[in-house]
């Protein structure tokens, strides 16, 4: 797949430029379910994208499914509850491990053990991330085996409609919003399997969920110290880059320790910050045209020109 990933679009709109750069003709299918109840407030997007758009209305369709298929709805809620609990336990484990890592790094500072201890701490955090990813994936697979969403009549009917819409467009555009809702709806209707030769334009949360791994991050949240956390595997329409939208609000790029940790923790993926209007393109193998985007490096610095 080829496409473009973009930063937020509220203050600087670059959707039209991204679509032009991809060069694919025809109308665009929209996913705005991350906006939840505001899903249909997409009136600005046709002019911003410079094309006719057709909203897939995945949020509305999802609500219809949950209302019509009570058995599915019950199982869906139960799984969501489990996912929330697992996420909370993972977060607790992560916080304690980070506390330990900080304490050890203070005590080991300046000693021969410093580098080794740092490496061990990082390995522990990466292992916790990986185990969480595997656990969530196993839960999802078990759920799908149990309820077989694609075979349920109400979902199958919506999929047929979606397939028809997607067969008449060349680009799938995924807006940001609530990433868990985006993931749920994209998975509920198996949208990835309905794509053929489509190009992708995804911004902010949309860029995050369409990758291989969804990472939640905010380094100065109101409730205290912000440690990023893995949510789950993404839809997998692009790989190799972990998009970090809106760095001015959410990251502390001037703190080398945080930048270095983030970069090492999610390696080999490249952690790429995308501010308002920034975008980068990909063709399935290479990344290019990264102007404005910022790479977080393992040495704690940031840089541009990372696709060269």
């Amino acid at each position, binding site marked *: 797949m080829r496409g473009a990933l973009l930063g937020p679009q509220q203050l600087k709109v670059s959707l039209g430029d991204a679509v032009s750069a991809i060069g694919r003709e025809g109308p665009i299918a929209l996913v705005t379910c991350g906006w939840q109840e505001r899903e249909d407030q997409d009136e600005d997007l046709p002019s911003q994208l410079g094309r006719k758009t057709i909203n897939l209305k995945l949020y509305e369709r999802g609500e219809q499914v*949950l209302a019509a298929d009570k058995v599915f709805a019950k199982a869906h809620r139960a799984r969501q509850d489990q996912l929330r609990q697992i996420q909370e336990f993972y977060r607790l484990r992560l916080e304690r491990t980070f506390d330990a890592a900080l304490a050890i790094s203070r005590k080991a500072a300046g000693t021969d053990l410093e580098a080794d201890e740092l490496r061990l701490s990082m390995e522990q955090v990466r292992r916790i991330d990986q185990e969480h990813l595997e656990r969530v994936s196993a839960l999802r697979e078990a759920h799908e085996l149990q309820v077989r969403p694609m075979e349920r009549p109400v979902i199958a009917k919506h999929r047929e409609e979606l397939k028809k819409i997607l067969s008449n467009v060349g680009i799938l555009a995924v807006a940001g*919003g*609530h990433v868990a809702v985006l993931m749920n709806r994209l998975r509920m209707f198996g949208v990835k399997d309905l794509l053929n030769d489509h190009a992708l334009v995804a911004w902010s949360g949309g860029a995050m969920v369409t990758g291989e791994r969804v990472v939640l991050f905010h380094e100065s949240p109101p409730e205290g110290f912000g440690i990023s956390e893995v949510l789950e595997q993404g839809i997998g329409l692009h790989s190799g880059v972990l998009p970090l939208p809106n760095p001015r609000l959410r990251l502390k790029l001037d703190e080398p320790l945080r930048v270095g940790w983030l970069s090492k923790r999610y390696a080999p993926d490249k952690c790429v910050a995308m501010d308002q209007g920034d975008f980068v393109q990909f063709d399935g193998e290479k990344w290019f045209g990264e102007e404005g985007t910022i790479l977080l490096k393992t040495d704690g610095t940031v840089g541009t020109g990372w696709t060269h």
Partner: protein
Amino acid sequence: MDPLSELAIEVLKKGPHDGPTIDAFMKSHSFPLVEGGKVTFCFRGQVDGVHLKSWVYGLPNSQPLHHLSDSDLWHLTLDIPPKSRVEYKFEIVRNGNGHWIEDPLNPFRATDPFGANSVVHGEGYSIPEWTQVDPDARPGTLEPWVVKSKAFNDTRGFLVYLPARFRKTRRYPLLFVHDGPDYVRFANLKTVLDNLIHRLEIPDLVVALTGSPNRIGEYADDERHARYVTEEAIPDLEARLPLIGQPRGRCLMGASFGGVASLSTAVRYPGFYGRLLLQSGSFAFSDIGHQNKRGPAFEPVVKFMNRFRENPVLVADKAFISCGMHESLIYENRSLIPMLQTTQLELKYVEARDGHNWENWRDRLREGLSWLFPGPLRMVYE
């Protein structure tokens, strides 16, 4: 403030104290005068004496202002650490009689059920902007609610806050607030909820804003209150509203005696509540016997706290506790923390340079609520 520069009042003291000089001084400053860590309180008038009345634990409750000779100006300079908030009044003495007034030179005032006080903001303190109405934040609604109570053999009415995007198909956490109407009136709780929900810092919450006709009695570890809340009010709310209905979705909150009511209710029903938000709780205790110096209203509190201190048990998963450094209850609250830590409770404890008042409790709401109920901020990337 440059540490070498002289306080404005010291400069004034050196010069002439005639009317025009004082007039010019008053006109060129706002009062109280905040200069670094020093605050100078001033009062102008033909009186026999002026006293600063404040409730800062560790300082005298009453301190005389000094008379600037040959003038009608009274002044007192105190050390007020940065980011402090201090509520106070002046006692004006005329002909041997004193009466209390708000500082006529200070526009800042805080209200509570007993009236109003003047407020001085130490350097670096500002009223948090999330406590003020944000026109972009969609307001939630307040719905009347009535519960028949067998525990009290009467009918209890209160208000229920529903978030702006309330939907019957969703499930919400429940925050059960003691002294709810006072929290709304004096701590801007409704505005705070609207704003924090709008900013995604807390999730959509349903909030029961309850009160009591006899809070001093009912909030002091009264078995009937715990039964009313746990077996009557909350089941009724969970039956008629789309609530999570599990410990992680139930939070008890209260300040002062409301904090005692929250803790004692959770102690009586371990495992039922998952979250506690306790502000300046009146957690009086004694190490020997049940004597206390705070008066008869505290007797049941002391008995409860002494029992709890003997056998601290895990009563919730998470608790946020805050207290003002300027209030005498700081001792009791600080004492509670290590004890709760032994129960494996996930705990966050915060102290503020403030007193036993509603604006202190208001200013801690963001940190407390967002810690107990982290919002979708981490989930939403527009």
